[in-house]
């Protein structure tokens, strides 16, 4: 370890011939993994599209049971967190360890805010009985309303799980940043988690209008 800067030199794994090759493998692997994520969520979106085509009126009614105010707040949290994530990668590229750490921390806190708002929303749905059909006891005009809330909980739930996983990854990154493992010569994990985070963001960019803003 370099005592002046607190930076730990990264060593290329034995089966790679250069750090460029190692980076290329990590990048390609991450992108391919994110493709699987897109298709994983995609299945739910296909289900959404089919049901929406069958019951357009029900979806409009269902959206009125959701609070667009809370949804917008969460959108702002997530978009801002995507920005701070980028800034942490940038700080690592500039060898600013402290800044890198704090940007990661802000990203983490924004994600926590997102989950907090989500919890409030879920609590409201529970209160009004707007749940999947097993427990549905809400009031509505459309008889297929439980379908929407089944879909709502499946989609936002799966997205929420991805946020929680992302928060775990952020903690891991913060620890490694504290240890001084990221610097201008090596920041692969930062960049890869960043890509993951942007895809989770991307999913929300679709989810929010499709669930909350239907007319």
């Amino acid at each position, binding site marked *: 370890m370099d005592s002046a800067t607190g930076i730990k030199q990264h060593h290329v794994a034995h089966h790679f011939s250069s750090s460029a090759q190692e980076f290329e493998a990590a990048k390609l692997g991450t992108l391919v993994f994110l493709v699987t994520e897109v298709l994983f969520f*995609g299945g739910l979106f*296909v289900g959404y*599209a089919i049901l929406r085509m069958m019951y357009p009126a029900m979806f409009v009614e269902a959206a009125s049971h959701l609070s667009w105010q809370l949804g917008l707040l969460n959108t702002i949290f997530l978009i801002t967190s995507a920005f701070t994530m980028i800034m942490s990668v940038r700080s690592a590229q500039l060898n600013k360890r402290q800044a890198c750490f704090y940007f990661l921390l802000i990203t983490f806190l924004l994600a926590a805010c997102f989950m907090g708002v989500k919890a409030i929303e879920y609590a409201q749905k529970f209160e009004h009985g707007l749940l999947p059909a097993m427990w549905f006891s809400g009031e509505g005009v459309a008889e297929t309303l439980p379908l929407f809330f089944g879909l709502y909980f499946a989609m936002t739930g799966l997205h929420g799980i991805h946020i929680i996983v992302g928060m775990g990854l952020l903690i891991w990154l913060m620890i490694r940043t504290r240890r001084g493992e990221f610097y201008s010569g090596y920041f692969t994990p930062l960049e890869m988690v960043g890509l993951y985070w942007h895809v989770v963001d991307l999913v929300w960019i679709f989810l929010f209008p499709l669930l909350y803003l239907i007319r």
Partner: protein
Amino acid sequence: MQTQHEEVPHPHFMIPLKYTVGTLISLLVLAVTNVIISQFDLGIYNIVIMFGIILVMATLDMLFFMGFRWERGFHIMMFLSGFVFLFIFLSFTLSDIMYRNATDPYKMQPYGIKNLVKPLPAGGEHSERTEHSE
């Protein structure tokens, strides 16, 4: 002798600050715009505008947050292939669902699917299977 690694243009490229800040602001503005527009009834245009805004936001996210503006074409193709296959999945499934009443011209609704069901009793008991509503 050439290897494929020499094509990697800038493995340690740094996204310029003006792009990230610009993207942040435009994404926030677009999100708010989307909400505002959804408060007015514009008929069919509601959904058109909504999807337009979603697509612009998604593109911005990919171009500048994920850095695809400076990425190798192959990597972008790789990532977008996910959406291509999703489109295949959706369109072929729709080709079934949309044309299903063609197999049963006497029904004015998708074949074999119930539009109406009895509301579920409280406690979520399995409801009785109802016959076709029409």
